[in-house]
């Protein structure tokens, strides 16, 4: 086993170990009722945000494309989840929540994946900031369209309407335009969320460490060099983009079915930015970093509740300071000197965790 391979194995093991460890501790806390309501209520959203961050990292960190519409895929997943779950109950009288949850998550992932392909084909021809703006535009279009989308069930059949709400008389609305997805029976559980995180990690870590993953990273580091080596840039960028879309759709279904209602305004541009912040703060190309920062940044505002008025202010200042301190050469040198003894203790090659290159 080469040194690089061993390091990768250790990194992957640490990632899985931490996630599983955290899960076992939390499960025990729940069993012992040693957990506050507030934290318990956040467990499923945290799972969803972790998956969002890890999947976006695949696009930004590994494939090097700046996507600003990731929340759009999440909304597709959330809406699909609400519709499929409602339809399964109405048409097949499926009561088993776990089976229903699994099926809806799959459906959410598949539909988001289809949209990923549809959007990816044109979008991935563009580069850098242009790609960013088009993904942003797609996110906004999706939000605009679901505002005028109506889906209901009647006699076990699904009915769709667009712009005009024309429905049979005995309809039960599942998606009601601006009112969003309504009357969802919340069925998401922390356990399913945890399993979904594990699946995400398996998929993403396997992908980036595979032949395809190396090709993806090669297109990021130098597109022209990769192309001249015979790597099909579009194919591999597409692979990363669609995988991320599927995972985001699954996260969306989990997230949507955790609440009794889902609204388009939950998946705005700002939400995409939030996930982007998770990824950048956690480190580009660093999966473990994404997990930690998604968790930390979801819990942080809740911990800061007492400072309600100043919370967002503090968040903004912290964001700016962190970015400056981690990216400015001077402050970085100071930090390196301060942490040098600590680093010596571990004596690890930091290349794996330091993250990938710049987004082009």
């Amino acid at each position: 086993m080469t040194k690089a391979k061993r390091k990768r194995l250790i990194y992957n093991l640490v990632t899985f170990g931490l996630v599983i460890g955290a899960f076992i501790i939390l499960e025990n806390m729940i069993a012992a009722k040693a957990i506050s309501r507030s934290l318990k209520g956040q467990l499923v959203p945290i799972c969803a945000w972790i998956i969002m961050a890890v999947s976006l990292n695949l696009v930004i960190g590994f494939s090097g494309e700046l996507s600003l519409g990731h929340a759009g895929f999440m909304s597709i997943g959330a809406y699909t989840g609400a519709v499929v779950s409602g339809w399964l109950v109405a048409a097949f009288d499926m009561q088993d929540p776990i089976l229903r949850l699994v099926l809806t998550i799959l459906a959410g992932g598949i539909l988001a994946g289809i949209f990923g392909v549809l959007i990816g084909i044109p979008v991935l021809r563009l580069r850098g900031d242009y790609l960013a703006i088009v993904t942003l535009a797609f996110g906004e279009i999706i939000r605009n369209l679901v505002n005028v989308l109506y889906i209901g069930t009647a006699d076990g059949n699904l009915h769709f309407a667009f712009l005009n709400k024309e429905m049979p008389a005995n309809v039960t609305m599942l998606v009601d335009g601006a009112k969003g997805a309504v009357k969802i029976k919340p069925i998401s559980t922390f356990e399913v969320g945890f399993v979904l995180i594990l699946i995400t990690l398996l998929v993403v870590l396997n992908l980036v460490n595979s032949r395809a993953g190396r090709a993806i990273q090669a297109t990021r580091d130098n597109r022209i060099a990769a192309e001249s080596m015979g790597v099909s840039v579009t194919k591999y960028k597409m692979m990363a983009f669609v995988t991320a879309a599927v995972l985001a759709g699954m996260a969306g279904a989990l997230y949507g079915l955790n609440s009794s209602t889902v609204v388009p305004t939950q998946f705005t541009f700002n939400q995409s930015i939030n996930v982007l912040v998770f990824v950048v703060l956690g480190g580009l190309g660093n999966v473990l970093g994404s997990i930690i920062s998604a968790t930390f940044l979801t819990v942080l505002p809740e911990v800061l509740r007492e400072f309600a008025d100043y919370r967002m202010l503090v968040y903004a200042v912290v964001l700016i300071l962190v970015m400056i301190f981690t990216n400015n050469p001077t402050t970085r040198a100071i930090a390196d000197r301060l942490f040098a003894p600590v680093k010596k203790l571990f004596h690890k090659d930091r290349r794996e965790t330091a993250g990938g290159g710049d987004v082009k």
Partner: protein
Amino acid sequence: MIFLDNLINGLSLGSIYAIIALGYTMVYGIARMLNFAHGDVIMVGAYIAFCGLQYWGLPPVLAFVVAMLFCTCLGITIEGLAYRPLRQATSLAVLITAIGMSYLLQNIALMIWGANPKSFPTTFINGSSIRLGQLNISTAAIITILANVVIMVGLTLFTSRTKLGKAMRCVSEDRGAAELMGINVNRTISLTFAIGSALAAIAGILLCSSYPILQPTTGSMPGIKAFTAAVFGGIGSIPGAMLGGILLGVIEIFGKAYISTELGDAIVFAVLIIVLLVKPAGLLGKPMREKV
């Protein structure tokens, strides 16, 4: 008649987008960064003008000059404190910092001016409307379009004729070479931010004169639309920002008027996507783009 009416409204809205887009595009051309806080500088500019008119009792012109001066200082301060330390950092790090700055400005505005909307006072800009037969044209629309033209001509002259303007173009072309030629890069970037922020203040005043509601979030959506306009026209290009802004405004109004108000924003963004697919560098952008 209705068509003309819509066209004028579209041009007026587009002119506002264009002036905002100029700020995005200039900063992008020089500093290679998407300054997401630009939309919030607009909001600050409008609030300062509001305070000048409502609280300090200044005459309108003076209030607007104060707002412009304030935003100029604000722009330079933001650049110096938050963006300058990141000159060497990845573009993504700068983007996140800019987003942080945007949150910061919004929340400071929320603390100072509160969440209740303010109505922008009536001034010479939006005081009346002109009647031409059946057509009613508000003075705000005319002044906005005129201001846009003046700014456009002024900026073009500035970048092509003056020494500072040439220095700006030089920095955007090749920062390293510019430095070697004795151009103070940091000062040039500060200047760009100063001009961009002064334009933001003007945009804020015009925006709130046409649509007189002022809230801490006032700048967000026009900011995003203008950003889209800048990319639409080819980011980094001054005429591109102008063209992109005006087209975006006209498309938005026409889309709402002749297709559907429900899908207004979706139409704007769909047109953007189609244009970028046909011309991946925007309308006036070239692969080897001429920056500012």
